[in-house]
């Protein structure tokens, strides 16, 4: 308390901190919004009362392009949607067109095995970027460097297969574009021998790091019902499920197997985990992160099985797709690293080579739509931690 007026007009001014609501615009250029997401935060001091995501800073008209070019020509554009998991996106669109053309059962076994092989490797690469960049958001730099070291090895394998580092266009309609080169299987299994012990390093760097646990455990809690109502999928949903309460392992590779995933042995990691720190609750940012870590183990397991299967797989790597799309419509969802990626293809009634409509149901788009619910009431410093745990790719959100 301080009196600054003369005594005759005495007035007491309390030097208290009065706070007002303030709108803070975070992004589109912000180091921790994973690209060009813009969040408008309504804050009272440090506490965020409302988050409004603004999208569209990377809208690249993919759906308009899809209805003007043939399906084979559209494959490269699917790469550029989710640029961290190009193979999985190629696969989703190829499966949709194959379903429309009635080719689903005719894909040779060898093509299926190669598809599983590259998709799972790409899932590992994508999750590596996911956790590396997540560490970067929370202020630790070294996991990023280690994650990129392993990712470069996977990219080397992909480069041998198709010549590209990021935008592969390798999985196409009717199979895959090329057979695997000589000696690739050995190099791949050599990589797995290197990679699997490295996972333990990441656990030491992040999972058991007490600062990391303090930053992530218990924030951004997403209840299961809300996740389902908002259409969240992938690690986002699985981090909110509870195995002990009888929730199904909601992974399309298990419940709606495509590409022969039913012939592989793998588990879908669901909470509660043995390693869970005491602060963490099911559905928080830590669980979403840990589901990704566990999925990498399972993916490595699937790759090992696929490598064995490839030795004996029969058939060609690809069959000739029909030149014209039949009339009708097909919707296919696949399990991408970020969730269920759906492609909806409508053929023209006149049997042309160009589809009438292509729609991409993006998993990050749905996962992001829950941000305003899970960020309510958190601190500003927690917003990057929550948004980073969603692991969005803006190319996929905006398409």
């Amino acid at each position, binding site marked *: 308390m301080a009196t600054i007026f003369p005594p005759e007009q005495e007035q007491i001014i309390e030097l208290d901190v009065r706070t007002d609501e303030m709108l803070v615009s975070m992004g589109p250029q912000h180091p921790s919004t994973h690209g060009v997401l813009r969040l408008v935060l309504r804050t009272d001091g440090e506490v965020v009362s409302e988050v409004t995501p603004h*999208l*569209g800073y990377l*809208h690249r*008209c993919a*759906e*308009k392009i899809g*209805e003007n070019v043939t399906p084979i020509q559209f494959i490269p554009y699917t790469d550029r949607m989710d640029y961290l998991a190009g193979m999985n996106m190629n696969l989703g669109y190829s499966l949709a067109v194959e*379903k*429309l053309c009635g080719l689903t059962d005719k894909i040779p076994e060898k093509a299926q095995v190669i598809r599983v092989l590259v998709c799972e490797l790409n899932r590992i690469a994508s999750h590596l970027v996911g956790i590396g960049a997540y560490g970067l958001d929370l202020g630790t730099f070294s996991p990023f460097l280690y994650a990129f070291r392993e990712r470069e090895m996977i990219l080397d394998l992909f480069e041998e297969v198709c010549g590209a580092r990021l935008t592969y266009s390798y999985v196409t309609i009717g199979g895959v574009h090329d057979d695997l080169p000589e000696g690739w299987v050995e190099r791949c299994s050599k990589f797995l021998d290197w990679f699997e012990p490295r996972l333990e390093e990441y656990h030491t760097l992040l999972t058991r790091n007490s600062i990391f646990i303090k930053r992530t455990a218990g924030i951004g809690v997403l209840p299961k019902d*809300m996740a*389902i*109502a*908002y*259409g969240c999928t992938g690690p986002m949903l699985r981090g909110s499920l509870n195995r002990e309460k009888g929730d*199904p392992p*909601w992974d399309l590779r298990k*419940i*709606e197997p495509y590409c022969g995933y039913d012939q592989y042995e793998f588990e879908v990691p669901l909470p509660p985990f043995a390693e869970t720190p005491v602060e963490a609750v099911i559905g928080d940012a830590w669980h979403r992160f840990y589901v990704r870590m566990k999925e990498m183990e399972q993916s490595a397991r699937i790759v090992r099985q696929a490598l064995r299967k490839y030795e004996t797989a029969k058939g060609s790597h690809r069959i000739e797709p029909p030149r014209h799309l039949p*009339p*009708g*419509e*097909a*919707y296919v*969802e696949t399990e991408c690293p970020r969730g*269920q990626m*759906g492609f*909806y293809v*409508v053929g*023209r*009634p*006149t049997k042309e080579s160009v589809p*009438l*409509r292509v*729609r991409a*149901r993006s998993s990050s*788009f*749905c996962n992001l*739509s829950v941000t305003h619910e899970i960020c309510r009431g958190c601190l500003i410093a927690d917003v990057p931690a929550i948004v980073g745990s969603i692991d969005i790719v803006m190319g996929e959100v*905006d*398409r």
Partner: protein
Amino acid sequence: MGGAEIIAILVEKFGPRIQQTKPDAIDPYVVVDAGDLVDVCRFLRDDPRLQFDMLNCITGVDYCEPDPAKAPKAGFEPHLEVVYHLSSFVKRHRFVVKVLLPRWKDNVPGQLPEVPTVTSIWPAANWHERETYDLVGVYFVGHPDLRRILLAEDWEGHPLRKDYVFPLEYHGIRGR
């Protein structure tokens, strides 16, 4: 549960309000009138046999052939479709609901056709409907916050309409 059984349940419940059924399509679907959409969707979510608790996708499809020479042979009348892809977390089945609309309300170009919103049933519909409004041009009646989501606020036109003309410039930046 297969598509045919779901259609049977819906026809039993709603009768003639289900305008069209297609159990033999690749993804079986029903067509309902825009006025009945909310009732049908609520039934699909709440019925214990169906339990469609997840809305996967909302798509607007513009059936139109802008070239007048090809239009008679296109194989369809000009119209819009709004397609709802549903799936069930508990029952693990999928289904498709469609709404057919005229391209323009009352055939006045510029008047967007109207569909009631399903945001109250599935919150996931919020952003999907905004996107459909933005790109295809369908007005969702009762939507809490129907703004453009991907394109800029002052954008003109709805790009996924087949007769959309690409802009030559936007705020002084040439577009061609």
